[in-house]
């Protein structure tokens, strides 16, 4: 049977406010356990929440960026359950009246599938702390630094039909929140976490199959792999005559399998009710419009501009605009180099390769946009060749310095002096009798390819510094003269 995959995502985005959503404690990542948890975060008796207006502003920015209705009245509710890293015994969240109503984003996968994914809503809530099970024998430690960090939970409709679409959607949300500057986008530190609701149904069937929820996936790659693994499991299960049970499952990237965490029957009754410690959040049109004025250019608009203004291909424009830090970097390189295509090739090519290999975010790149721009300028003005530029880039990455400093220090300046090149070409030809004979014997239309050998010899002799264009011309001229 042919199966259709149905996926909906719930994405938790950590807002980059300085302080927590309901207290004045810092939200910075990586502090000593419990040093960033104040009386409110510890849920000491008598403490009360005060809503951080910055979190509201950021949620409204998000809503506007995904074409959503903004809730002019939103209400915090308490989601009641017991867990050691949930200090109050309830999570303050939004349910019936969220800050962001229905909206949508358009996505495109690597293989060109385009789709509009509808958002059911997005709501504000507080994060929980962390339980640390490894460090304490027979006990668990609790770190409440993260407790009260503001989150926006973005709930999509079940509109995605493949793991690739799910990953593309997650990337799009990532691009939007980083462009807006409301999230640092650092998935390894948990700034964006994803729950995937996955079900299958026979192709053509309207009714949704029973879904499972894959919890807390923190990379785009794992989203794809977890969904593929879960879909395969569901298909095997059903084709073997079984049924899918509604449950929460955990994806184990090491074993590439999903396993059951808890079933629907074990699910809590969360006893939601409006939080009596917080007033309903009421905003008006002028508040919303003032925020709309501050919105930066969004990824879709930037992509269009990259195509029209920079003449980039749709693919290049899509890749470069998908992450705001990368798009900013690219535009800075363009500004310096004056060459949109060359800049795109380098940002998506050599730079991306080094970033990937070293697992480095472009924001932390050891080679700045200024450095790379300076390098491209030297390619453009023929000071160095593209190949030498790669060598310069490698040195830049490992040791720092401007392109000019490295070229100077390493003596990599390209030889464009025709006299000097001619001298070397003559030597190369004189030392390669056999190859010259073969060249002469060849059909004229095959000779072009044979120039490669001589080219290699010249480059070897000059340490790669000879201008390739000049060398080709001189070689061709001298060799062809021998043939006449």
């Amino acid at each position, binding site marked *: 049977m042919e199966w259709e995959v149905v996926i909906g995502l719930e994405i938790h985005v950590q807002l980059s406010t300085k302080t927590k959503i309901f207290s004045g404690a810092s939200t910075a990542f990586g502090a000593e356990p419990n040093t960033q948890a104040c009386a409110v975060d510890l849920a000491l*008796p*008598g403490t*009360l929440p005060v809503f951080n207006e910055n979190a509201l502003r950021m949620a409204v920015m998000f809503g506007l960026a995904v074409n959503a209705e903004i809730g002019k009245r939103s209400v915090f509710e308490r989601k*009641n359950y017991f867990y*050691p890293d949930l200090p109050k*015994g309830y999570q303050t969240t939004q349910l019936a009246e969220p800050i962001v109503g229905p909206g949508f984003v358009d996505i495109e996968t690597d293989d060109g599938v385009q789709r509009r994914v509808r958002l059911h809503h997005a709501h504000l809530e507080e994060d929980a702390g962390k339980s640390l099970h490894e460090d304490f024998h027979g006990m668990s430690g*609790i770190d409440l630094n993260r407790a009260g960090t503001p989150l926006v939970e973005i709930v999509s409709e079940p509109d995605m039909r493949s793991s690739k679409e799910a990953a593309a959607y997650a990337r799009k949300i990532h691009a939007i929140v980083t462009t807006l500057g409301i999230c640092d986008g650092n998935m390894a530190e948990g700034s964006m976490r994803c729950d995937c609701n996955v079900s299958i149904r026979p192709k053509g069937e309207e009714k949704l199959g029973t879904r499972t929820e894959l919890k807390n996936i923190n990379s785009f790659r794992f989203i794809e792999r977890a969904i593929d693994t879960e879909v395969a499991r569901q298909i095997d299960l059903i084709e073997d005559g079984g049924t899918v049970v509604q449950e929460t499952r955990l994806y184990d990237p090491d074993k590439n399998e999903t396993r059951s965490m808890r079933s629907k029957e074990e699910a809590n009754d969360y006893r939601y*009710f409006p939080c009596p*410690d917080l*007033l309903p959040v009421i905003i008006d049109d002028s508040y919303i419009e003032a925020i709309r004025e501050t919105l930066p250019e969004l990824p879709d608009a930037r992509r269009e501009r990259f195509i029209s203004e920079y003449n980039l291909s749709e693919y290049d424009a899509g890749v470069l605009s998908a992450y705001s830090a990368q798009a900013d970097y690219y535009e800075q390189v363009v500004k310096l180099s004056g060459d949109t295509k060359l800049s795109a090739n380098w940002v998506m090519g050599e730079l991306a390769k080094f970033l990937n290999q070293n697992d480095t975010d472009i924001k932390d790149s050891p080679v700045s946009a200024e450095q790379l721009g300076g390098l491209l300028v030297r390619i453009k003005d023929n000071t160095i060749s593209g190949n030498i530029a790669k060598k310069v880039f490698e040195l830049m990455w490992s040791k720092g310095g401007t392109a000019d400093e490295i070229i100077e220090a390493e003596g990599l300046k390209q030889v464009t002096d025709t006299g000097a090149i001619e001298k070397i070409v003559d030597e190369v030809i004189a030392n390669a009798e056999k190859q010259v004979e073969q060249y002469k014997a060849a059909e004229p239309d095959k000779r072009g390819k044979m120039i490669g050998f001589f080219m290699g010899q010249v480059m070897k002799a000059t340490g790669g510094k000879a201008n390739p264009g000049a060398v080709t011309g001189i070689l061709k001229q001298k060799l062809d003269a021998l043939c006449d």
Partner: protein
Amino acid sequence: MFDKTLAELAQGLERGDYSSTELTQAYLQRINALDSRYNAFITLTEEQALAQAKAADEARAAGNGGALCGLPIAHKDLFCTQGVRTSSASKMLDNFVSPYDATIVSRLKNAGTVTLGKLNMDEFAMGSSNESSFYGPARNPWNTDCVPGGSSGGSAAAVAARLTPAATGSDTGGSIRQPAALCGITGLKPTYGRVSRYGMIAFASSLDQAGPMAQTAEDCGMILNAMAGFDPMDSTSAERDVEDYTAKLNQPLAGLKIGLPKEYFSAALDAGVAEQVRNAVAEFEKLGATVKEVSLPNTELCIPAYYILAPAEASSNLSRFDGVRYGYRCDNPVDLEDLYKRSRGEGFGTEVKRRIMVGAYALSAGYYDAYYNKAQQIRRMIQQDFVNVLNDVDVIMGPTTPKTAFKLGEKSSDPVSMYMEDIFTLSLNLAGLPGISVPCGQSNGLPVGLQIIGNYFAESKLLNVAHQFQQATDWHKQIPAGVEV
């Protein structure tokens, strides 16, 4: 000296009749000597009190003393006090020493008051008799076989026994007014939002309100002056200017329009209480007020609505007491579930557990609309009833409680009859309105309280009306037999 009001003691300090240190020592001695009869205090803070008194004397000598500087008071034990046990009268918090001061505690400290100690109460403010306290019941100074009322029973008993000139209390369904009535003192529940709730251990967040308890309305006004006002730490506190609550005490009452709700004078009302309340109303007529009958038609719905909403909020508010971070933890938990179940099972008393279960039930899936939502609708109806009546009259008057103080143990096996104690008081919490209870007579040797209800933020008016009554009567000056002053 112990018969003196806060205002009179302030004059004595001002005149130099005694220092704050002498005053504080005298009260501490008195508490040590007499409190075994009343069990009004959970914790005495002698060292802190004497240090505060010394500082107050110095401030006064330097000419920096305000109206409350150097005056001793005591706090209900649900207000967090830095460095001092704050128990909410629960085994759960018997070991909890607060690292911070509640907003009202710091405001009263800044005003120069001296904190004698922490006062007994019903556990987590849940009760009308003070019998649910982990530290045993406080007793009514008028008859120590009787309850002082609750939940601010220790506060009322301490003021009535003249162990402190004034105290703080909190009122979620009558917890200031009912014990004030039963102990023959004056107690004010302000408008919801008038006084910060930050640092007050929550029972039911949308109903809780802190207020003053003292011998007189004037004293209550003096304390409210320090307590009231917007607090950025409490989102539900009102961003509204604070009046001088003692400034209008002496305005004459000629032309005051009083409404008497017919529902408050029903068959459930004790005849002796009804008589004293009617006498009090007659006194107001003598002062120039006019009286008319009004109707609060949904009065009987108050109790069912309240006993859904208050427990619902409480069930969530008390979830933080889980044995993980502070407070009581059971011995040798075998796993997380065991830790939760036994810590909470052993740490909470019967009434608290009853309300947590009722509240959790009312909020659970499938029952929410039938209970919680319905109760919220009733709450709005009750509020509207009051708004309608208060468009027509200046204040509403009636009995604070249906009966005078009852015997210890009399109602402890019958929670519903205990809940009926609050029939006249808890509608104000549902509506968010201010109310004051003043002593207005005695029935069978026990005090009767008159409740005066005003419009939102009309605390000044309530204190004025109560003060004028106290200028004309001396019920507030009655001291229980056996309480030597």
